[in-house]
């Protein structure tokens, strides 16, 4: 194509005034890319129109600049906020990009799983602690019972020990005379030893295997002095050694 003929065809003037169809526009742009002369001519025509347009320059009202600058400042702040935290500024779900949404879901899912695990561990630990507490409380009750039993045993042993000590003391006394009393006809197997202090006339009943008495009954010791019975005192069993008088 003859370039000069193309440039002087009028198509470029129609192009800069926006009078061509889309198809024609693309053709001109292709020519501009291929031929510097065409591009240069178009630039020159645009400059002419720019100068022509500037002939119509009108100063806008003075208050307009600050209004516009404020709006631009607002837009800039919004843009920066959007860049900083895209997920928060675009609250409607459909405005969130799929990736951000997916990330959020995965974060929430992870948090939910972690929460469930923590909850289950906590419940398990509570059950364990509760059972431990129950066991400890049972143990404490058992120990208290044992303790009570032991202290009871100790008291019994102490009693027993003091009885034995008394008996040992009694036997060591040179004034004491042991008297063995054989069982009567009805109870030949039973024997009782009585310790008689000849000095102060006190009688002690030694460890005996007397038969168990029915409820409400007691033993009574009698002595035969000058053919007459003399009451020496009553004996209630369970006491190993008891002075009748």
């Amino acid at each position, binding site marked *: 194509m003859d370039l000069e003929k193309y440039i002087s065809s009028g198509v470029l*003037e129609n192009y800069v005034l926006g009078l061509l169809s889309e198809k024609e526009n693309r053709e001109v742009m292709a020519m501009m890319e291929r031929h510097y002369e065409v591009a240069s001519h178009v630039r020159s025509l645009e400059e002419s*129109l720019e100068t022509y347009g*500037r002939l119509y320059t009108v100063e806008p009202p003075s208050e307009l600049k600050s209004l516009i600058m404020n709006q631009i400042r607002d837009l800039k702040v919004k843009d920066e906020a959007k860049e900083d935290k895209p997920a928060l500024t675009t609250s409607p779900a459909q405005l969130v990009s799929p990736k951000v949404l997916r990330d959020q879901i995965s974060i929430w899912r992870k948090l939910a799983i972690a929460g469930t695990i923590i909850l289950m561990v906590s419940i398990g630990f509570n059950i364990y602690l509760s059972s431990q507490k129950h066991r400890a409380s049972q143990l404490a009750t058992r120990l208290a019972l044992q303790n009570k039993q032991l202290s009871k045993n100790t008291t019994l042993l102490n009693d027993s020990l003091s009885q034995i000590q008394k008996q040992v003391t009694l036997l060591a006394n040179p004034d004491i005379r042991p008297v063995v009393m054989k069982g009567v006809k009805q109870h030949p197997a039973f024997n009782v030893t009585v310790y008689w202090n000849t000095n102060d006339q006190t009688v002690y009943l030694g460890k005996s295997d007397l038969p168990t008495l029915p409820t409400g009954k007691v033993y009574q010791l009698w002595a035969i002095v000058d053919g007459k019975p003399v009451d020496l005192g009553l004996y209630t069993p369970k006491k190993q050694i008891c002075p009748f008088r």
Partner: protein
Amino acid sequence: MTNETLNNEKDLVIALKKGDESAYSYLYDHYGAAIYGYILQMTSDTELAKDLLQDVFIKVFQKIGQYDEQKGHLYTWLIRVAHNTTIDKIRSKNYKENRHIHAFDEKNAGDADNGTTTPSVDHIGMDKVLVSLDETHKKVIDLAYFHGYTQNEIAEEMGMPIGTVKTQVRKALIQLRKLLNIV
């Protein structure tokens, strides 16, 4: 960024794309009046032009990323933004109902009063350009440049065949360039 460094259009565009506030201040100071005058030519409505100038700067802020300096001057791009913003506003149903102002592409928009408003020129000698420009040439340029008329619409408006419109456009620009001493 200071005004000195904004002397270069390339630097200005870079600063605008970064969202530099002082760049927008500079843009307003150097291009605002031209854009405002352009919008006034299109609408002949001061109040509307004030609103539109704000809209244009907002759009520039939002769309400056799309501007490719390889494809044309910043001024040409700014005028295109202003043109489209104004057309959108004029064509919007809401605006038509409220203002009863007709879009440029309606027949009466091409009336001599509307299409060739005399500008308030403060450039010494520039009014000569406008006075000297052939009336037909001026009308062809204005209908296309300020009102976005198509070749068909200009042909109908001026009562001439489309082929004649095409050649008139070329002749009009040649005369304009001669008057502006850009040849």
